[in-house]
């Protein structure tokens, strides 16, 4: 590629290597480090004047650091007179926060889009955005690539009896994604539904976590708005502390709270007792008996909801085998180990858009990683040459 430079952030050097290998170039030199006070420092190691610059940076565990790094790199290239700067973000950070939740939520994905634009980005290449509407957050062109062709190819190559299989969505929000894959593979689909309100009613023995920051008045208004939280005032404490009962948070992936949430502790929810209580309210719409089931979603962060879905499919619905498939394998905390222990899940299939540390990969025998670097590399090549990339939406490379 003439007059093009590909830079790599520190989030996912392995993916950059794969991409550059496909493009037949070496990553352009850049020195990325941190000052003693934790500020990020970027030194572009070659001239980018009038060059077509691509910066590859995915999300990662240190998401804020890597986002900042990307912004600084973009800004540095802009200041160094690059002719065009394309951010290649296989996993778009904060993409789950793409809409206002029912009360006062920030649309952080939109803010990230604004930050990128302000830093000076001219073009974005990303993959399987949580909501494709996010392309509208930018005033710049966004190419949202799909992992679906690669995933479909993997299923066709690796699962012999896939043609009698069923693609399953583990929540209603993902139904559309799943039907698209089912159509491509020409197989049936089903849907798992977890009823949160009914969970609330059935589930009396929930973990109680003190919430001191929330005043009584406000907590009542929140309980009106969101069924996931119900608040009660404890009679046993004298100083009128408000208690929060958080139900079923682990199944509630669309509205996931961050795991390091300051006001609510989620950890106690992973108790056995809770799991048993909640799994009663899972319903499967569709039929998987005697068939191979593919639970498909765009990202797998915590494993709880996937495990619950897989258990339900195997134990109550008599599925033959369960594959968990998702594009972005975020797999935070001990998700990999939990999945490893879960007998109901046969394989976990993710793509390499999100970095999974080597030592974690060794923990799991069920993990399969699909390489999507070819799709990303081809998108970069076509973008550079001004060719159409529509071809990549339907074809696995």
């Amino acid at each position: 590629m003439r007059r093009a430079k590909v830079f790599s952030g520190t989030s996912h050097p392995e993916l950059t290597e794969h991409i550059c290998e496909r493009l037949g170039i070496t990553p352009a030199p850049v020195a990325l480090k941190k000052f003693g006070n934790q500020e990020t420092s970027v030194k572009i190691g070659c001239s980018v004047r009038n060059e077509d610059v691509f910066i590859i940076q995915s999300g990662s565990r240190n998401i804020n650091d890597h986002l900042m790094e990307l912004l600084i790199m973009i800004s540095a290239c802009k200041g160094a007179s690059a002719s065009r700067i394309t951010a290649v973000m296989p996993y778009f950070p904060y993409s789950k926060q793409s809409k206002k939740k029912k009360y006062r939520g920030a649309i952080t994905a939109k803010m990230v889009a604004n930050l990128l634009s302000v830093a000076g980005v001219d073009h974005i290449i990303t993959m399987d955005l949580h909501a494709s509407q996010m392309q509208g957050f930018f005033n710049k062109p966004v190419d949202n690539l799909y992992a679906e062709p690669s995933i479909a190819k993997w299923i066709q190559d690796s699962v012999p009896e896939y043609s009698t299989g069923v693609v399953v969505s583990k929540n209603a929000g993902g139904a559309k994604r799943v039907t698209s894959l089912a159509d491509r593979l020409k197989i049936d689909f089903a849907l798992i539904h977890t009823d949160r309100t009914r969970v609330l009613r059935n589930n009396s023995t929930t973990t109680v976590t003190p919430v001191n920051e929330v005043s009584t008045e406000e907590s009542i208004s929140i309980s009106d708005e969101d069924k996931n939280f119900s608040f009660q005032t404890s009679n046993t404490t004298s100083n009128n502390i408000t208690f929060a009962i958080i139900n079923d948070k682990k199944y509630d992936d669309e509205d996931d709270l961050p795991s390091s949430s300051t006001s609510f502790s989620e950890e106690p929810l992973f108790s056995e007792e809770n799991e048993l209580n909640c799994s009663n309210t899972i319903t499967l719409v569709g039929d998987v008996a005697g068939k191979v089931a593919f639970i498909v979603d765009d990202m797998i962060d915590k494993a709880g909801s996937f495990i619950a879905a897989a258990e339900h499919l195997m134990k109550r619905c008599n599925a033959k085998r369960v594959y968990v498939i998702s594009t972005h394998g975020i797999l935070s905390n001990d998700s990999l180990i939990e999945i490893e222990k879960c007998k109901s899940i046969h394989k976990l299939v993710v793509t390499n858009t999100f970095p999974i540390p080597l030592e974690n990969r060794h923990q799991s025998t069920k993990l399969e990683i699909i390489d999507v670097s070819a799709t990303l590399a081809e998108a970069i090549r076509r973008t550079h040459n001004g060719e159409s990339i529509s071809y990549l939406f339907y074809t696995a490379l």
Partner: protein
Amino acid sequence: MSTNSIKIFAGNSHLELAQLVASKIGVDLSKVVVLKYSNQETSVTIGESVRDEDVFIIQSGCGEINDNLMELLIMINACKTASARRITAVIPCFPYARQDKKDKSRAPITAKLVANMLTVSGANHVITMDLHASQIQGFFNVPVDNLYCEPSMLKYIKTEIPDWKNAMIVSPDAGGAKRATSIADRLNLDFALIHKERKKANEVSRMVLVGDVNGKVAILVDDMADTCGTLITAAKTLKDKGAIKVYAIVAHGILSGKAIDVINEPYLERLVVTNTIPHEDKKRVCPKIDTIDVSPTLAEAIRRTHNGESVSFLFSHAPE
């Protein structure tokens, strides 16, 4: 001294709704003359002072959609240049909301363009209802309050559908599954899903029902009914699968093209739409259409916005 009172203006798209909203708040609609020059340009004359006032402009995205949008933009701009303190566009049905993503190569994101146009013309705040995708809120750099018809729908189901306890909530496509499950949860009912399946190339797509409706009343739930093609095929499928009756509840009843003819076919018991879009004339030729009045929700949202109160209450409650 400024009074900073509510001024409600109405465009030509849905005067009736604007009047309902204004009467709920207890004010008269402010004077505005919106007409067209002979060369089809829209002309707006604001008939009273808006200096330092809190202006709400009610205009729905329906009928002559481009004319109505242009009218709204010009009205916002007219109020802006007339020194209004704050201008809130109340858009019950957001125009171009379905063009919210690049679903095909080179597709324009027109909803984003509309958002930009509203912001550029000077809107400080947007109130809308049941956006096709709530991500559209992120297209704006100004606050957007996306109200829900759901509480009104729930109320309707509980009061107007006699055997609702024996009902199934059905989504006519996979994209609407989330909306349907939310209603099903609130009513403690089961739900099912219809999927247009393309088994093989060149084969006519067929509808597949995921779930069981045999011997039940089926309530189809969607955010929009345009030509009603999908809705009727869905109703037909449900009837074939043994549903006793099929109701459809839809937030925005655009009802264009052959919609009235297909609704009059015997598959659908009743089609319930909200009055975010005017449909009185259609109601006269099609007795199956029933209306949910959402003006109380809009009026309350306007009142609360004006007074700086929280609107969250309206997300789960339908005011009288």
